[in-house]
């Protein structure tokens, strides 16, 4: 069967691609568009390593068909930094050693950014439950949660 032509926006860039109806957004991002920052840890929505934003909504790109991107706005980890400037969450994750191996880090960053957009003043419990869909096997989550809380506090300070 012929492939489907999809017109979408990825990290602010108008993007077109061809895909099969069975392909996931994650497959297209990684294999066709060269955006390998989104990772596949499970392919079943249980690890969050493939987290992206779809029309400002946090989702697992492994559980989205690529054809569904038509006319939508997709944001990935590759769009998080601006030029030479890392996003405050990216900076804080490095500063706080909130990553060890780093495979889960893109997913955590995308999810954390989504949290702070919705709730700029989360409690530790809220951060932990929001990030429960992102598995990390290295850090025990401690430094990740601290980094997110710290960035939230700094962003509130800046916004004042």
């Amino acid at each position, binding site marked *: 069967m012929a492939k489907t032509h999809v017109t979408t926006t990825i990290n602010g860039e108008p993007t077109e691609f061809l895909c099969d109806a069975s392909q996931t957004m994650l497959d297209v991002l*990684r294999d066709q568009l060269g*955006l*390998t*920052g*989104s*990772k*596949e*840890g*499970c*392919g*079943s929505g*249980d*690890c969050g*390593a493939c987290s992206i934003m779809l029309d400002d909504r946090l989702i697992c790109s492994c559980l989205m068909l690529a054809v569904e991107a038509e006319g939508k706005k997709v944001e*990935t*980890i*590759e769009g*998080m*930094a601006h030029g030479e400037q*890392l996003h405050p969450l*990216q*900076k804080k*994750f*490095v*500063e*706080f*050693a909130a*990553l*060890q*191996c*780093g*495979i*889960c*880090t*893109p997913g955590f*960053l995308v999810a954390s950014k989504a949290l702070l957009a919705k709730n700029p003043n989360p409690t*530790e*419990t809220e*951060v*932990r*439950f929001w*990030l*429960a*869909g*992102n*598995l*990390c*096997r*290295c*850090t*025990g*989550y*401690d*430094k*990740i*949660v*601290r980094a997110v809380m710290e960035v939230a506090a700094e962003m509130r300070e800046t916004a004042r």
Partner: protein
Amino acid sequence: MSKGKYKWIGTRPDRPDGADKVTGRARFGADFNMPGQLVGKVLRSPHAHAVIKSIDASAALALPGVKAVVSAVDFPDQPNLIVPTGEMQVNLRDITRNVMAREKALYEGHPVAAVAATTEAVAKAALDLIKVEYEVLPHVIDVADAMKEDAPILHDHLITEGVKPAPTKPSNIAKRIDNLKGDIEAGFKQAEIVVERHYTTQAVHQGYIEPHATLASAAEDGQIQLWSTTQGHFQVRGFCSRLLNIETSQIRVTPTEIGGGFGGKTVVYLEPIAVRLSQKSGKPVKMVMSRDEVFRASGPAPGGTVHVKIGAKRDGTIVAAECTIALQAGAFPGSPVGPACWTSFACYDIPNIKVVGYDVVSNRPKVAAYRAPGAPISAWGVESTVDILAQELRMDPIDLRLKNAAKKGTKTSYGPTFDTIGFVETLEAAKASEHYKSKPRAGMSRGVAAGFWFNVGADSSAAAHVAEDGTVTIISGNPDIGGSRASLALMAAEELGVDYSKVRPVIADTSSIGFNFVTGGSRVTFATGLAVVNSVRDMIRELKVRAAKTWGVDPDGVIWEDGCAKPAGSNVGEFEPLSLAQLAATAGRTGGPINGHAQLNAQGAGPGFGVHIVDLAVDRDTGIVTVDRYTAAQDVGTAIHPSYVEGQLQGGAVQGVGWALNEEYIYGSKGRLDNAGFLDYRMPVASDLPMIETILVEVPNPHHPYGVRGVGEVPIVPPLAAVGNAVARSTGIRLTDLPLSPPRLSAAIDAATPRMAAE
């Protein structure tokens, strides 16, 4: 912290690969591609135990897009020869059979054949077209069952090692280990109290988030390029060389960034298959495991049984200790029962010890190393038993441990006598902690347990290069699994007396640096760190020669201080110090490039000890455990980059909490794994946990210039018993079988309170 003593060591700068890792730029195993690459897929046995009668791949090969099919016939058979790999040993005869089943499929998920095709869809379709004729055999999953007289036998050639006289019949017991110290019978005679219990644990998976992945490109002239997510690219090279009869130097393995390993990426699964498929197809072949495959066919750590008996005086002095440990090896011999035995009583100075271990095969995936392999299992038994002893003697559990703690000069049951160790200091730090001094919050109960790991040294190579502008590249050969680039760079900066930002650490492929043993055994910061320090010292020696040449003095008259060459004294002459940048700028005139090299087999890895404290609540109606507070104290030698040291303690503790509470391999009646996914293999999620407090106790290792001890493995040893001890103190019920999952805990509570159960 070691601040003050050092300029860089003990500080917390950003890791050199930080920006790459937070932007998605870092390239992990599945992120490598080559033009024209094929997709490789593995056909796996659906049976736990079956004779492979025939394999017919003709229909698969006829499918358009299929470029190669391999099965056992494509791999040369191997001799019965044991080689080390990480902290475990493997037999070449077995490893080739684990990579690709030969006579029999020995576990569900065992590779039987593999294909390379133009697309993933074609590769999957091709797998369905390979006809394998099996003769299904009775299987055995459980260790205790596998040890029974009438158990199905996995290997007809397997005669138990370590038993005299040697058995005449094959069995599933591959090996028996005996450790003896003192006189166990006389010891127990002195005991005024004896505690004895039988414990079990289930198999658990390392649970790295990145599945195994590799990309192989075999050229027509026999040269092989391989990219692999591995803890040891030199091991990958070595295994591929052995298993495929290729000269080692013909294979160049580049390690990708690695998305977690915890011991599980110290062996090969896909790499030899990918190389063979690439050879046969003439194209690069990329292979990536699914999560399902990771669970069914890689890892896991063994489950097993631990029988512990401890005898003590009324004052708490332990006079005799005995344990018997049987561990799952999986389908091939080689469980970590050795380390399980050796670590079992290593925390304590006990005059009379008897330890017996059994390595048992069954129809499960071949186990791999997992963070302090074997130690958490024996510690679950021993540390629970020590806690019962503390309860029966009405002693504080830390005081009981202090009374019996191993110290410098304590002779272990497995041979060595400890040099400077920090167990007493760690116990004292835990006891003095704010956590331990404050009462558990309302409804919470507290558990304490200790743990030990040897740590490893072994082979490392490193090089240091000065660039034209005086900045430095440090080249080593261990994949950075958790921030080791930062610790290596910190030690190099300290040694050289230059800014951390002037040192760039690089991890080289197998052809670009000398041999390095795996990233494992908590050895990288210790052993490779030592190689880096030595390579920098070699470079400093050369820098002094160049300064001497510049000044026209003897090299012995030059010292290196604060990043500069200086005259050793006024008798040498009056010279302005020469900086690294100045010496680099004039290198062409003083003898050419300035580099340093080092290679070594590191001895004297300092053992580490941990003490964990946990406060938790048990919901008596549901059996749900809620962890409220957790502290991990550990003798870490010197914390080179304290954040990453803390991270090791936190991550290890949480893996241990998962092992204690919910993680387990669950098998169905046909010997098939029932929970091969993150949904039902329940690793801790962020909302399951509190912050993990850490106490870094710095007792420097005398065998390392900066006092480094490995830190990565100790922290997974205490948590199983710490959690179990807290649950026992909360419920009044001593559970001896892991995991303490809600149904199991609830059943135990109901059994102990019959009125409720009858309700």
